[in-house]
């Protein structure tokens, strides 16, 4: 009888993903963020099909121009078309953001889950986390470039090689927060009875982790993911800002911003567009993260 009551109250059917999407849609900031983000991604990847100027084409006669029909974002001091550069830079920045985030996420989740789940190695892993927090990024980057650049260049070509390096360095130095958060969540999830039930049914531990622990810490992981994209884009920008990072004919938003900073007064659009692109991307991604967190909030799932 009470079963009947409960059944009345449940929404008929509806898969998990659809629920999630419905929750997500209820978050105006998240929806706005998603629209902006999709727009940026589309602009960056599809834009070059419309605006076909080669980003590395030099037209020295047309340098330092303001916005015009031919160059909607103006040109830089070598006569590169800024719109083409911003789009090309966006492709790299977004790709770096995504992949570095993924790497950081995988590492962070791995460490977080292990140290949350296995009490014995918790202390050790957390101290390793401390170590990585203390590691200076720049010397690490230099060392890694020295050790692996040529091998990677030989294997993947110069561009992909340096891409892998940068992504690796950013990923390897930014997983710690994810690890800490995931660890905390795992500690909470681990003590729930369904984990015990799974263990009691004779599942291998690793299967328990994969099928029960991980999905339940997903919400923090997703939030870390969105924050991770943002911080990876900013870190890459900061690396470019400090003069490391990609080769100079490889525009990224950070490098465009850095190179443009001095030209702010002559040609404000050089700073404005990449700066805006970085800020908007990070902002939209953060809003998406917020919405995902709200949507995945167990309080929302459990009535």
């Amino acid at each position: 009888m009470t079963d009947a009551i409960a059944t009345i109250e449940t929404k008929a059917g509806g898969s998990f993903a659809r629920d999630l999407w419905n929750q997500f849609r209820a978050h105006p900031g998240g929806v706005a963020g998603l629209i902006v983000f999709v727009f940026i991604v589309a602009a960056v990847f599809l834009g070059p099909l419309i605006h076909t100027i080669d980003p590395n084409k030099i037209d020295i006669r047309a340098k330092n121009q303001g916005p015009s029909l031919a160059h909607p974002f103006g040109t830089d001091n070598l006569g590169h078309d800024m719109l083409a550069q911003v789009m090309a830079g966006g492709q790299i920045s977004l790709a770096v953001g995504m992949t570095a985030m993924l790497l950081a996420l995988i590492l962070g989740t791995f460490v977080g889950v292990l140290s949350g789940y296995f009490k014995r190695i918790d202390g050790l892993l957390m101290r390793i986390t401390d170590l990585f927090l203390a590691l200076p990024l720049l010397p690490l980057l230099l060392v890694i470039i020295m050790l692996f650049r040529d091998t990677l260049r030989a294997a993947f070509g110069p561009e992909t090689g340096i891409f892998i390096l940068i992504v690796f360095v950013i990923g390897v130095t930014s997983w710690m927060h994810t690890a800490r958060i995931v660890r905390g969540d795992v500690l909470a999830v681990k003590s729930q009875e369904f984990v015990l039930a799974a263990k009691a049914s004779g599942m291998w531990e690793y299967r328990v982790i994969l099928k029960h622990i991980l999905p339940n810490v997903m919400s923090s992981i997703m939030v870390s993911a969105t924050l991770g994209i943002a911080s990876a884009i900013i870190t890459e920008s900061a690396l470019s800002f400090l003069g490391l990072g990609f080769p100079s004919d490889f525009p990224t938003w950070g490098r465009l911003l850095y190179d443009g900073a001095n030209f702010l007064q002559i040609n404000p659009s050089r700073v404005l567009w990449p700066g805006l692109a970085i800020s908007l991307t990070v902002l939209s991604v953060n809003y998406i993260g917020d919405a995902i967190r709200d949507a995945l909030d167990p309080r929302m799932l459990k009535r």
Partner: protein
Amino acid sequence: MFTFTLRRLLFAVPTLLVISFIIFALLDLAPSDPLSDLPLTIPPEVRAQIREAMGLDQPFFVRYLRWLQQFFVNEPLNIFEQITGITVGTGERMRVLSWATRSPVVDLIVQRLPQTLWVVGLSYLFGVLLAIPIGVVSAYRQYSVFDQIGTFVSMVGYSVPTFFTGVLLIVIFSSWLQWFPSIYDTNLVVNDWGSFILQVKQMFLPVMVLTLYNTSQISRFVRASMLDNLHQDYVRTARAKGVKEKVVLLVHVLRNSLIPVVTVIALGVPTIFSGAIITEQIFRVNGLGQLLITAIQGADIPLVQTLTFIFAVLIVLFNLIADVLYGILDPRIRYD
């Protein structure tokens, strides 16, 4: 609690040793060279002599052990002597010397600390002080206009990189309006009203940029934590007792909400000491961040090693402090 702290402290020693070794090895491996900014006109033989004088020709382990001795024995003894005036032993011992300046690293750090504390520390403090009320009101009036705006501003605050806002602010306020200096004067001594105003002026822009960032981040934490607690049963109990709403909010909810926030704040303190590299660079505040970045660029290994190691110590220490604070603030947590 005491034994917990003690045990963690004891455990910290080997941890830190390992960290120091790894950092040292990393720096040693790094291909940058302390002599790289010397003019190319200085011939190779002279360079070799300079290297030798720096001790660079010694094997890796010798250098590491020497650094350990200098850092863990000589420097503390030196500080001890300076404080007490008692001379221990001959009083002559090798201190950790920077390669670039040939002066004791610790002195450099002590010299840089004030600027960093003023600018980065103050903005952290402001950040915390602003974030708490903002977070509280945002959570209490969830989805209100204040909350929406606050959320947006704080999102912007930590989405827009400081190297963008910083450059923008300098051009607007230093170049066009000329309200604030674009260069931080570390020699300024605050001894009267006028110099105080100057100090405030030169700190304004960097502190503002960093405060915005810190406030944004911490207020998010406060808000989330407040929201968690606002719906707890004990809040209902307090209301059912007839406690005033203000007291419910500020005593019951806030106190509980601050527990996780305090640990987040504690974990953030080490970043004050690492300085805000980019912000310091942009506003030319010659603090610890700037010291570190010049040291890294100049491959000044003793300086980088010491700075990063001190940073590591702070991280480990504040991790511990965060845990201990948690235990103190939350009576339910009892380590041991």
